[in-house]
Each structure stands twice: as C-alpha cells, then as structure tokens.
C-alpha cells in the first residue's frame, strides 16, 4: 500500500513537472472563460426578449434554456475529461518500458501491481482535480450568473468523472502491451464507437425501433463510456425537456442503473487486466 502511494505521488509530480497540469489548467480556464461569456450573452439576450410576456411562461422557457446551456457546457467538459484520461494513460507504461525508466523501478522490492495501481491512483487524483475544475466551474458559472441550479448535480458530476476514469483505465491497460500511439488509436476508436452507439440508441428510441436500441446497448456493453454521460444528463436534465424528447444534450433512452454498475465492474476488470498483463510481460 505504501509503495502504491509513493508511485502515485511520483506520477502526480511527473504530471506537474512536465507541465501537463499547467496546460490543463490554462486551457481549462480559457474554456471556462469562453463558456462564461457565451452563457452571459445568451442568458441576457433571452431574458430581455422575454420581458413583457407572461412571467410564468418566461420563467419556464428561461429555465429550460438554462438547462440546455448548462448541459451543453457539461457535454463539452465530458469530452475534454475523457480525452484527458486517454492522453494521461496512453504513454505511461509503454513510454517507460521503451525508455527503460521502468527497469530501475521494477528491480526494487516493489510488486509490479503496485506500479500499475500507483500510476492509476496518481492519474485518478489528477483527473479528479481536472473534473472538479471543469465541471465545477461550468456549474458554478451557470449558478452565479443566473441563479439556476441543476438537479442531482453531485450525482451527475460523479458520473462524468467516472467516465473519464473509465477511459483512463482502458488507456492504461492498452499501454501495458501496446505503444503509446497504438493505445491512443484504440482508445479514441472505442470512444467513437461508444459515441455513435449512443446516438443510434437515442434515435432508435425516438423512432421506437427496437433493433437500433439493441445496437446501442451492445455498443454500451463493449464500452460503456457514453452511457455514463447519458445517465448523467438524465439525472441533471429538467423534467420538461425529458418529456419533450430528444435534444443533443439531454437523453431519451436512459441507461439503467444496472448499466452504471456494469461500467464500474468493467473499470475494475480493466484495471485487473492491466495489472495482470504488466505482471507477466518481459521488460
């Protein structure tokens, strides 16, 4: 356990020293600034246009608009966090194996599993900070400017974080036997699959086409990342927009809690696979 912590700290320090933290922070702040400005413009515009109309009606329309805007922001954050997860994991084991830095670590009285778990923990903390900055910043921006609060925001943000963790774990596992570049290819390929599968399922739900829904569910079983976002969106979207049907940032076909459980088990098994592959390979 002590070794896992030592290696997690090393991983975190590496990210800090190699300016991964700095670039993430700077670009994150740029993202939040743009979101903030955009949100302000749209919100003020909608509010002044609505003046004079029936107040109750205006309130409903405004709150629906705010919900869509907030979810649009979080959708972008989800994508960025997943990409961050993919990039962090991609080169970590493969890079150290190629460069040989792994040799002095593994020839110490350290379990190989400690190396994998330590790196995972370091990245998980890093992604947690990133997620908190980005999702938290987006939610706060909406709240402070408009006073609008998303429903179930804690659960929603946790699911977004879980998605980035899942992608990072897959990336780490691939990195234990593939090159950094190949890992990137595989992970983004899977992410794309999950994305398109999610849309097929949503459109299938609107058209009530069972086959399309099943295609979506099967891709979610292959890689459940997009279903985590769709569950997060379901938790946070307003009841009215849920009733109205499909929107780009809401969801119609809702992944069940079972799918969330599946994603958690999927993550744990992927991490175990990473450990096992790394334990048995020559370095």
């Amino acid at each position, binding site marked *: 356990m002590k070794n896992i912590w030592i290696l997690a700290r090393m991983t975190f*320090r590496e990210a800090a*020293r190699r300016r991964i933290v700095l670039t993430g922070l700077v670009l994150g702040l740029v993202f939040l600034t743009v979101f903030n400005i955009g949100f302000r413009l749209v919100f003020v515009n909608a509010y002044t246009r609505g003046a004079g109309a029936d107040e109750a009606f205006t309130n409903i329309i405004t709150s629906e608009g705010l919900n869509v805007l907030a979810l649009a922001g979080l959708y972008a954050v989800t994508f960025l966090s997943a990409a961050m997860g993919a990039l962090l994991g991609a080169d970590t084991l493969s890079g150290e194996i190629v460069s040989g830095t792994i*040799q*002095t670590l593994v*020839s110490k*009285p350290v379990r190989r599993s400690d190396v994998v778990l330590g790196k995972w923990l370091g990245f998980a903390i890093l992604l947690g900070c990133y997620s908190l900055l980005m999702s938290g910043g987006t939610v706060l921006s909406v709240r402070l400017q408009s006073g609008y609060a998303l429903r179930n925001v804690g659960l929603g943000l946790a699911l977004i974080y879980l998605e980035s963790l899942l992608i990072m774990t897959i990336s780490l596992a691939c990195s234990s036997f593939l090159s950094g570049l190949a890992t990137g290819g595989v992970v983004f390929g899977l992410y794309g699959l999950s994305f398109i599968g999610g849309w097929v399922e949503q459109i299938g739900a609107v058209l009530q086409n069972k086959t399309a829904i099943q295609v979506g569910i099967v891709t979610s079983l292959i890689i459940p990342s997009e279903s985590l976002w769709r569950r997060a969106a379901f938790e946070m979207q307003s009841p009215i927009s849920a009733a109205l049907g499909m929107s780009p940032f809401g969801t119609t076909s809702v992944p069940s809690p079972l799918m969330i459980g599946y994603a958690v088990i999927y993550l744990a098994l992927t991490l175990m696979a990473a450990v096992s592959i790394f334990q048995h390979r020559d370095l």
Partner: protein
Amino acid sequence: MSIPAIRTEALRKEFGTYAAVKSLTLQVEQGEVFGFLGPNGAGKTTSIKMLLGLVSPTSGAGALLGKPLGNRATLARIGFLPEHFRFQEWLTADEFLELHGELLGMSRPDLNLRRAELLERVGLSGFRHKQLRTFSKGMLQRIGLAQALMNRPALVFLDEPTSGLDPVGRRLVRDVIHELRAQGTSVFLNSHLLSEIEVTCNRVAFIRHGEVVRVMEMSALDRNISLLTIRADGLTAEVIAGLEQWGADIRLDDGHLTMTIRSEADLPEINRYLVERQAQVFALIPNRVPLEEIFIETLGKDSGL
C-alpha cells in the same frame, strides 16, 4: 561454505524462435567482483534482466543470495545500474534518490544520511536541487550509480557502467568498485572496456550465444600465460626453433622476438639457453597477455551482432 551471491543452472530465454540466452550456468561467490564478457548480442543484458526478474526465463533456475530468482525481498539487498539507463528526468537529484530509497523501504533518517553520503561520493552534491533533465550523460551515470548503492547492497549489477564516461568518470567508477570489493560487496560487472575488467575483477566469464565458454581467474593472467619480448642479437633460425620448448606464437620483427610462454618461471632457463648459444641478450621482458587477446582467442574474431 558461504551461500553464493549468484548461482544459475541452464538459464534459458527464447524470444519467439530465437534463443537470446541458450543455457547460462555460472556461480559468483560473495565478495567477488565478477566480469561478464562477450560480444554484442551474446545475451549479457538479457541474462542480467533474468537475474533481476525483469525478464522471465523460458527454462532453467537460479538464485540470488541464496533465494530463488523472483524473490521480492531479496531485491531490497540488490543494486542495479541498467545499460542505456534513462531515469525520471523531471525529478531533481535529491528527489530521484529519495524515490528509490523509499521504494527500497529505507527509513527516513537513513535515507537522508545515505543520500548525502552518495551525492558527495559521486561528486554531485552541488547539483542536488537540479532536475536530471539538465544533467550531462556523465552526470546521469553518476546519479545512476548512486541510485544503485542507496541500500548498501550485498550484490550490485552494473551493466556497462563506464560507457559514455570521460576518464575522470571512469576512474570514479573504478574506485567505487574497489571500495565495494574492500567492503565485501559482490559486483557483477558487464563491460566492453576490457582494461576496466582487468583492473577490477577477480574472475571473468566469457559468454557467447548465452553460454559460458570459459571462466578465468584474473590472477591467472599474471601467473601462467605471459607474453615475452626478447631483445637480442645473434638469434639464428636454429636458436629460435629451440625456443619452442617453452612456448609458442614466435614472431621476429625488427630485432625484437615475441612469443607466448607458459610460465614466467621458465625465464632464467630461457636466458641460460640463449647465452649458451652465443646470443647477445639485451633484455627479456615478460608481459601479461592482454585480456583482449584472450577475449579474441576465446570468443573468436567474429564481432557481435
């Protein structure tokens, strides 16, 4: 009899259909400085990696300090400087040694003490707060050596420790090896610099295709086979032919005759033989056969792959 530092029996490693190490059988005693010689591609680095558990053997067995290969606790008593070392270059020298000390399970006070001691020893005290990315190749090799010695190991593996070092750096490595030897630490030294091996090792093994071809005591270099240079006038063909009873490889160029002799103990008799046959002897100069000669004699002139 004490437990050997290293013992292997028919250790073999195949990569696909290619056997990088065919069958490595050797024994290194505790306190020995053991040289591991062979051409490129002879399987030296793969052998070291098998001993350290980085690569798993296809077959065969081995033990370090009496414990079977792959025993994790043993690794706390072992130091390793890899070939083509690359370290966590974003760490400072201080942090780098701290990381490795922590992974070795050293206590905090001991770690601090040992770190300061080693930074001083390898001449990097003034650079302890500098990141390794700013280090020259020689400085990296020095910090790598310090890393390998953090835990006061009982057995140290040095894979090409002097490659890329300037003469001062090489001298430092040589001195450190002498100190380790004086302290009774076993050293397993893989090096292409035969002159280094000559001055530091007790014994050497010559390996080819991952098999030990020959093991030799370095003291044998002094005692037995020598190279003799004779400076003399009046060496007739007949006299020269007569010298063959003490040795071989007789060559005459420019008034200098060189030959290999079996024993330096024969020198007075060779002198008497020459004088009795009216040769004007100016000098009989015995030389050790350089390790390089033995290397080529043992492993052939085929360069490695």
